[in-house]
């Protein structure tokens, strides 16, 4: 079965917003490596990325970064 009917739902799939039956339809295509679905999913991921960053940036407290770098230098 083609995947034209999935074009409207790739972003919702990536957001985890689909009902299980619609989600399964996308997964069936993805699992068999459908190149059209993978290409559309990459485009959908760009849309999701855009939506994630529509909020005003907030600078973390400086000590937060220092703590993080100390943690990973200990690893």
């Amino acid at each position, binding site marked *: 079965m083609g995947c034209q009917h999935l074009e*409207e*739902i790739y*972003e*919702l*799939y*990536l*957001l*985890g*917003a*689909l*009902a*299980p039956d619609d*989600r399964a339809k996308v*997964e069936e295509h*993805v699992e068999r490596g459908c190149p059209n679905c*993978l*290409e*559309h*999913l*990459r*485009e*959908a*991921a*760009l*849309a*999701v*990325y*855009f*939506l*994630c*960053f*529509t*909020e*005003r*940036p*907030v*600078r*973390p*407290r400086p000590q*937060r*970064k220092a*703590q*993080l*770098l100390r*943690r*990973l*230098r200990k*690893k």
Partner: protein
Amino acid sequence: MTQAPTAKDLLARVRARDADALGELYDGLAPGLLGMLLRILGDRGAAEEILDEVFLSLWNEAPEPARHRASVAARLAIRARNAATRQARSRRMARPPGRGDCDSPPMSLACLPQPDEIAALEERRELLKKVMKQLPAAQREALDLAVFDGYTEVEIAEKLGETLGRTKTALRAALRFLRHRLRAVLGTWAANI
């Protein structure tokens, strides 16, 4: 004049266990990520915890060879968003965070945007933000519930007191609008997508 290092250069240094390089990636990406995380969680402590986790996960996976060209910004944004919405969902349902059937699916790196696509989008972000203001308020509200609250279509319908059919129509219309504007603004209409 010395050029600022690219994300690709910084990632290569992170792979070589250079903590300062991770710090430079943090300086560039953390404010955008924290803005999103605060919107989702509304709690600075919880948002900063997830911020730390995504940078630690980047550090921990860094030694692996690069098999892909996925943008690090996209990778971290989607990872942070999914972790935060999972936590927001578990708070709503009063249960510990865990993987449930409404979770966002694991993202294959092959599906993530590439650095040049992210750079093109970032150049036009302000224009796209203006364009998104044209979305009808009801569509925007439904979309925000999906993006920032991790609601499913069924939950959005319940929350807004709408039928599931009308909610699906609103969400699909909003995303069609965004998809078409992205293609127009990024010049990908002619591409085979």
